[in-house]
């Protein structure tokens, strides 16, 4: 039989049974989706298929041959290329060096020819239609979305016959998501097999042929996507029906400004940005990737220095570092949880506590009772799925790490919440829960600046949407104007209003 056949695979981590006798099969020429809640075992299954981890029990066959990979290298040699959920580029190497790592193009002698490397990389970019990345730039200079692109190109450049994408779309902006999905379809038409993991039902449904659903480490069903509706998929995934994805909400914003930014400028990154965030408002930030959204958020959080003025409650404030911002009640959920938000090798408990250390301590000493209670509440609020709060953050599934990230900033009860793509990698149920939470924060008189790569989130929960283009604010959409079409139009610098 052709394709992958996985039989009765099990895998435990200590007390956690991540996979429990899972069966799974996929064929060449199809895009096969794997769906499931955070912690359902999707990434674990992927890691076993690509040799990063070994199964405790069970068999894997590919085209009738039994496989038992001891390392990712062996899987690569068998034509299995994987884009992992957590980015794995080497931050101090250039883009080209990363792409060709361990399979440098042949040149004379043992010295790697830099020019050749650059040419080959450019060739690849041309072939796959990428214009905005310089192969000689260091990876740590790239935005998250660009890094994700490099990661994808790196895998595809080896021309694998099986391509596994573990939440590869979660860090991409809308236009890039289309690019990836088109590419996946083209590859599938060439008889390659694509395994596709995503928490966005919409894109999964539009582009995949079949889907396998995992729940709590077990496979609970295989469906052909155009024969199944969303409700059925969701109830397969979470074992119950989901009421409404987006909450019902009424605009509650007062006229009173909470946070005002006046001509914020960072050389080359941010150009004269002025806007007002009102009390009780959720202000969406849209636009293509790299139009100054991230620098704007970093400036408001005191991480990057910008010229111009920031006013909070009508009072001018100076933000020299993130500590200053936190003291003023301004909190940022950073974009990249693994390098900016969380400390992977520390416990979940301490991670949750870090930003609020000063709140829970007096004379430097922690108030145990108070802090433990807050931690418990935080864990329950977003239902973080874990063994014990003393486990390291790195033992959590991607989505659960994201929940830790959000919870720890929620513990601060901030006045102004800056959210950079907060739902990245979070499952449908939890996303829906988070939208409710965002609206509730606004209702309580706080304000939220909400950036998302998912347009439907902007149209779903924002009072206004500010679209950025070329490092400044291009337009601000209000009320009826907030539609996907308008946001997309404004994103490329087209006016949505009829000119007189």
């Amino acid at each position, binding site marked *: 039989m052709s394709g992958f056949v996985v039989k009765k695979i099990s895998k435990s981590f*200590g007390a956690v*049974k991540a996979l429990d006798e899972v069966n799974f099969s996929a064929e060449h020429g199809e895009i096969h989706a794997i769906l499931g809640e955070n912690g359902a075992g999707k990434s674990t299954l992927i890691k076993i298929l690509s040799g990063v981890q070994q199964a405790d029990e069970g068999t894997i066959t590919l085209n009738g041959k039994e496989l038992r990979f001891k390392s990712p290298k062996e899987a690569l040699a068998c034509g299995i290329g994987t884009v992992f959920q957590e980015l794995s580029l080497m931050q101090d190497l250039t883009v080209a060096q990363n792409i060709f790592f361990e399979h440098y193009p042949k040149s004379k002698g043992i010295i790697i020819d830099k020019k050749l490397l650059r040419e080959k990389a450019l060739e690849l970019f041309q072939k796959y239609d990428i214009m905005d990345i310089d192969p000689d730039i260091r990876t740590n200079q790239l935005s998250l979305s660009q890094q994700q692109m490099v990661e994808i190109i790196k895998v595809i450049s080896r021309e694998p016959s099986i391509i596994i994408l573990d939440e590869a779309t979660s860090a991409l902006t809308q236009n890039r998501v289309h690019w990836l999905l088109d590419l996946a379809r083209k590859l599938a038409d060439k008889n390659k097999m694509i395994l596709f993991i995503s928490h966005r039902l919409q894109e999964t449904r539009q582009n995949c042929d079949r889907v396998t659903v995992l729940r709590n480490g077990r496979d609970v069903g295989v469906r052909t996507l155009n024969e199944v509706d969303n409700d059925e998929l969701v109830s397969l995934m979470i074992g119950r029906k989901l009421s409404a994805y987006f909450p019902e909400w009424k605009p509650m914003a007062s006229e009173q400004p909470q946070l005002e930014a006046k001509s914020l400028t960072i050389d080359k990154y941010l150009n004269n940005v002025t806007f007002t965030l009102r009390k009780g408002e959720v202000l969406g930030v849209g636009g293509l990737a790299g139009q100054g959204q991230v620098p704007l958020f970093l400036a408001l959080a005191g991480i990057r220095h910008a010229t111009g003025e920031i006013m909070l409650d009508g009072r001018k404030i100076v933000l020299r570092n993130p500590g200053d911002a936190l003291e003023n009640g301004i909190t940022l959920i950073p974009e990249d949880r693994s390098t900016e938000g969380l400390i992977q090798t520390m416990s979940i408990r301490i991670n949750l506590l870090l930003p609020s250390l000063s709140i829970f301590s007096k004379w430097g000493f922690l108030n145990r009772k108070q802090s433990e209670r807050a931690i418990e509440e935080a864990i329950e609020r977003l239902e973080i799925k874990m063994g014990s709060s003393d486990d390291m953050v790195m033992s959590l599934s991607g989505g659960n790490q994201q929940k830790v990230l959000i919870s720890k900033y929620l513990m601060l009860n901030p006045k102004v919440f800056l959210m950079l793509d907060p739902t990245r990698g979070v499952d449908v149920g939890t996303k829906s829960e988070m939208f409710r939470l965002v609206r509730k924060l606004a209702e309580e008189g706080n304000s939220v600046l909400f950036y998302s790569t998912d347009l439907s989130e902007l149209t779903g929960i924002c009072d206004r949407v500010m679209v950025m283009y070329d490092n400044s604010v291009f337009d601000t959409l209000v009320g009826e104007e907030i539609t996907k079409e308008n946001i997309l139009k404004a994103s490329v610098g087209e006016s949505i209003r009829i000119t007189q």
Partner: protein
Amino acid sequence: MKINEAARAGKLKINWSFAVPCIVLAMLIIAMGILKPATLSLYFLGIKCDISVSLVFVAAGQTLVLISEGIDLSVGGVMSIATCIMATMSEISLVGAILLCLVIGLAVGCINGLLISKLKMQPLITTLSTWTVLGGCALWILKTDGGYIPPAFTNFLIHRVGGIPVTLLFIIAVLIMWFFLKNTAFGYSVYAIGSNERAAYFNGIHITKTKIKIFCISGVCAALGGIMYAGINATGSPTVGESNIMMSIAAAVIGGTSLTGGRGGVTGTVVGVFILKLISDILVFAGITSYYTSLCQGLLLIICVAIGSVSTLLKNRRRLEYD
């Protein structure tokens, strides 16, 4: 999520990088007891504490720096200069000399911290420079070993309170301080910075302030180490600090502190200090010449580090499958 039984049984967590040095220390003590039963006495413990206490102070400060992913070579200079100041000035005023030493330790730490956090200089080079400068100053104050220490001070330090050595009380005090420090906001920040400085910064931790504090504590600890050394040995020495630099790092590493930051603690370091100090005794009692002491200390360092990392490797085998 299901809990499987075997895994739950294995859930008892052992911190190997701390357990290993404890086991080694226990073995050393037993070996000593066999070679020379007289060493299993309060008297011998007192002697050991007296010669270890200065290194305990220096290494405790060093440990804090190492946890934050730094390194402090200037402890050698601070320690030397402290012994010299004690040897030359304590005759005039003991309290004055002690205060001066502490102020110098604090100032050096402050300078180190400022250079490292504000100018983003490498800790290794920065503290190497301050060490060199201070070493020179120490030689300027006192040319050779010697000087005068008030006997009252020496007698106080080597005093036994109902059989318990005063120096042991000092060591216990260090441990108690550490226990408190570890659980303060500052303590958490130190570990966070050592694990991932960027993330720590995003979490609102004041990197500059924290680093300056860390180096100040290390400086003051080194000064205390020097004061203790001068007091107990009733002499000043412009070069004593040098051997204490590597010893302080070795003690911390043997005790389970990681040079890559984020892991370890002073409790392990104290165990490490005693291991280092006991090895030379064991060799003497076993009739091996003292030339082999540093050879054995070096070998032990490798063994301890290797055992520590192999056991974490085994423990984390699953996790390391990621790499």
